[in-house]
């Protein structure tokens, strides 16, 4: 049983892939979330507008639908663009050298990998949730902290990186941790676009061995392991970054 009917190695590879997708999506989500939060709080109505449209649309559509839209829609968009670019370039070049036989410069068909699509989609979705978390965290930092930074001559990058970021993170950690747990579980969706993560492998394996309960139970346990480790790490981080008082 412990070699999972011969699926142990491939299953472990899938479990590792799940973790990779989750961590890379998290990275993207944090970056997007920070940018969107800053845009929402900026004085520019254009930036605020774009960020608001982003968070409203993403948070209003089921993750599954978004994943399918980005994977299949993105695939078509990229290929159309590549086709149109080739047509346009050939048109231009034929104008200069009519006798030459021009070929494609971009490949006719670009295949978006499910790995890449999965990370981008999940990162994109959770960026919108992170934006709200970060926005609240930024607003929770006492105004005097940034005022002191300004008064001592820090430029806006230093003010953000030296003062705002470390202080907002303590307010953001609980929300960020929550988002991370949901994000981790959302990676199960990438199996539907064909990524060989542990959910997909469990599906395939249970089909051929007729042991669905065993495989999905193992998947559940692995997710539980990941989330348990995350939770203890978050507890530790919250303790470390808590506001020091007597």
């Amino acid at each position, binding site marked *: 049983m412990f070699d999972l009917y011969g699926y142990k190695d491939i299953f472990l590879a899938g479990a590792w892939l799940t973790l990779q997708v989750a961590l890379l999506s998290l990275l993207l989500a944090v970056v997007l979330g920070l940018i969107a939060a800053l845009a929402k709080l900026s004085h520019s109505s254009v930036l605020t507008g774009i960020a608001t449209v982003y968070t409203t649309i993403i948070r209003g559509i089921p993750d599954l639908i978004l994943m399918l839209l980005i994977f299949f829609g993105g695939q078509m968009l990229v290929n159309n663009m590549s086709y149109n670019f080739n047509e346009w370039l050939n048109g231009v070049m034929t104008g200069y050298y009519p006798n030459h036989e021009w070929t494609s410069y971009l490949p006719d068909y670009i295949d978006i990998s499910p790995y890449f699509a999965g990370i981008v989609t999940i990162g994109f979705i959770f960026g919108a949730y992170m934006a709200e978390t970060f926005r609240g965290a930024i607003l929770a930092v006492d105004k005097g902290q940034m005022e002191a930074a300004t008064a*001592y001559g820090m430029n806006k990058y230093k003010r953000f990186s030296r003062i705002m970021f470390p202080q907002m993170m303590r307010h953001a950690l609980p929300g960020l941790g929550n988002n991370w747990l949901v994000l981790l579980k959302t990676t199960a969706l990438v199996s539907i676009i064909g990524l060989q993560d542990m959910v997909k492998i469990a599906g395939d394996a249970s089909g051929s061995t007729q042991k669905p309960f065993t495989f999905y139970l193992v998947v559940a346990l692995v997710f539980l392991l990941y989330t348990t480790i995350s939770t203890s790490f978050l507890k530790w981080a919250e303790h470390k970054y808590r506001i020091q008082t007597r």
Partner: protein
Amino acid sequence: MTAPTLSIRNLHKSFADNEVLKGINLEAHQGDVISILGASGSGKSTLLRCVNLLETPTSGDILVNGELIEMKQDKKRGAIPASIKQVERIRSRLAMVFQGFNLWSHLSVIENVIEAPVHVLGVPKKEAIVKAEALLQRVGLYERKDYYPGQLSGGQQQRVAIARALAVEPEVMLFDEPTSALDPELVGEVLTVMRDLAEEGRTMLVVTHEMAFARDVSNKVLFLHQGLVEEEGKPELIFENPSSERFKQFISTVY
């Protein structure tokens, strides 16, 4: 004669339709300790915050060591600094001590003191630490150098804030009601440090309600009323012989 350390000429500041400062002139020379008095709403804090451009003046000139802070007109926002680089450079030469201390709460006491020297002025960290330790020694908080601001009393925090201000070797120190947020029994320890600084010849601009400090420590007092300088002069003169009826009233109510 050398240029004044700080001069303010015909400074105006409005918030929307409300004109808070209506043309203030002020000159501070090296070693001057100027107390700015006034009832709340008189514009005294706004004046101080205009000096380092935490508030942008609507019009008027500010010169630090003879260098004019350049302003330009923006269609939407009115007057804005022409060069944010210049403003940041000048700010780094003016240290501010706030009513609410505003120590950076994620940094320890010593880290608060070395933050601006290291990350704004580019002083090597080791050098900054040696100096910061001496400054903390001086305000009597060397033993607390690894504490966080939240672990200190208000008076201790304000003394750390003063050490943080001294660490940048400022041309002018700006004090914005430094004792107003303190419990009465903690006011003394902060004022003692400030007296020391005045005696060693620091140039200080102090917005305060501490009449004793204004009278005994400063060499010039400015009394603001409704955005204008109502009374100014040497404390020994104007406290004995106020020419303005309002200032007379003000000192009689505060005492």
